[in-house]
């Protein structure tokens, strides 16, 4: 083996003939054999030289010829006129099922799972994308929307729209909080360890939450009767977005559930507390609530403020994107540790 060093960029060494021969007959000492093995993984020329040396030995040569014949027969039987890659894709992990018997694998080719129809796959994707959608949150969303419409039209409750708008930005937060984390997702440990876990999965689920809640809440908001002074149906969209992105950014430090609770509490303080303070007897009247809501979301200044906040939080989230790869509460006393210790 030549061990002289060539400058960076050139190969430091290649396997020479004597070394191949000694490796082939098994007399090469271990450390040199390791070097050869790692080198051969990367260098095709040496790989083929070492293979030739092994073929030349008395014991391995006939065996290699034998296996070659068996392999080519297997392959010829297996895929007449079909690309091997396509076979593998359809069979999925089937090849792994029978490590020792290729014949069992060959039988597996005939039993291809029927590929699911498009609606079926879509339904599965939606089901997987939103743990929040199919749980308590989905029900809560429907109850709020139905309740708002019922109060406004059935009971003639004038403040329905104001109360609805005070609640609307917080609803997606609850969905996000219930979308990702050890407490919300029974598959959390597995999905967090998967390559597509972490922020990517959280964003997909957040999209599912927003995709359902934004159109629904906006439509219901537009349906409710609008007394003067209450902001328009679309005014809550930017605050809602900013609060959601803020939850995600905060969630990178504290976990989504805590972050959702904190942001929702912040919103409640910003809207309800001043409204309660202005009210004469402590209970905010619809007019005061509407006025306070208007201060928070109406007008170009407030809206651009929310937009800037959303951008700011999105930037923070991008900076902290790796944080979701590790469970935020994976420390002493965390859920995972409790599981491990129980």
């Amino acid at each position, binding site marked *: 083996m030549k061990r002289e060093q060539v400058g960076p960029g050139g190969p430091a060494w290649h396997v020479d003939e004597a070394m191949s021969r000694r490796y082939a007959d098994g007399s090469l000492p271990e*450390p040199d054999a390791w070097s050869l093995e790692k080198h051969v993984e990367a260098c095709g020329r040496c790989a083929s030289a070492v293979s030739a*040396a092994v*073929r030349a030995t008395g014991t391995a040569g006939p065996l290699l010829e034998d296996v070659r014949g068996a392999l080519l027969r297997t392959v010829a039987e297996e895929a007449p006129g079909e690309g091997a890659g396509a076979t593998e894709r359809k069979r999925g992990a089937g090849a792994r099922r029978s490590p020792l018997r290729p014949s069992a694998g060959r039988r597996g080719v005939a039993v291809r799972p029927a590929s699911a129809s498009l609606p079926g796959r879509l339904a599965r994707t939606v089901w997987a994308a939103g743990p929040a959608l199919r749980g308590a949150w989905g029900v809560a969303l429907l109850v709020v929307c139905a309740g708002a419409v019922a109060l406004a039209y059935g009971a003639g409750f004038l403040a329905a729209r104001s109360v609805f708008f005070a609640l609307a930005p917080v609803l997606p937060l609850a969905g996000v909080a219930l979308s990702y984390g050890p407490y919300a997702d029974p598959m959390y440990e597995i999905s967090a360890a998967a390559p597509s876990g972490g922020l990517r999965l959280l964003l997909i689920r957040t999209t599912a939450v927003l995709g359902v809640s934004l159109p629904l809440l906006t439509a219901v908001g537009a349906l409710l009767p609008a007394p003067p002074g209450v902001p328009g149906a679309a005014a809550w969209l930017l605050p809602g977005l900013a609060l959601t992105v803020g939850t995600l950014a905060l969630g990178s430090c504290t976990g989504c559930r805590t972050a959702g609770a904190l942001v929702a509490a912040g919103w409640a303080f910003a809207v309800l507390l001043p409204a309660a303070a202005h009210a004469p007897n402590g209970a905010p009247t619809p007019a005061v609530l509407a006025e306070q809501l208007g201060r928070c979301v109406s007008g170009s200044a407030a809206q651009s403020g929310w937009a800037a906040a959303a951008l700011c939080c999105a930037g923070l989230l991008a900076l902290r994107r790796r944080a979701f790869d590790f469970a935020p509460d994976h420390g002493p006393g965390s859920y995972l540790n409790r599981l491990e210790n129980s």
Partner: protein
Amino acid sequence: MKRFRPLRADRGYDAALLRGIARGDQAALAAFYDRHAGWLHARLARRCADAETVREVLQDTFVTVWRSAGSYRSGEAGGWLWVIAARRLVDAQRAQARAERVVHEPPAAVPSAEDSALGGLEYGDVGTALDRLSPELREVLRATVIDGLTTREAAQLLGIPEGTVKTRAMRARRELRAVLGQLGNAATTPWGGLA
């Protein structure tokens, strides 16, 4: 430091063969087999004394190559091939040992290979140090570092409990470090990351 850089043309050749195999070209598979089966056989035979198992693993590996060449993206074709073969070998050993062996508790996640260690392999000092290790320790080091197996897989391959793999790996590292320290070069080799 660069260890080696294989010729671009050679790597391209293997990649082209694998593309051909993915399309279902049997001649490409035969050519790929001729290039790689020899070293793969020798490498498997160094790790498994049973010739029949080696033969089965070899054939099964290339059948898998035929079926899953489409999943090869780029990079070292030989390394890709070895990953398949090593897993097959572990599976085969496990299938053989299943009857006799007790089930162990689930493994802890353990990092398997250390590139930094390989960086030093072409230096004489490291070779000397490895020579002085006892065969059991060297076997564990080979399975975890060179072959890229996890602790669990190494345990299955070598037929020893996982705890033993871990302690032997630790002892091997300690002894290597001690020997390298004696050789007076521990600070100057690229082996410094060994912990």
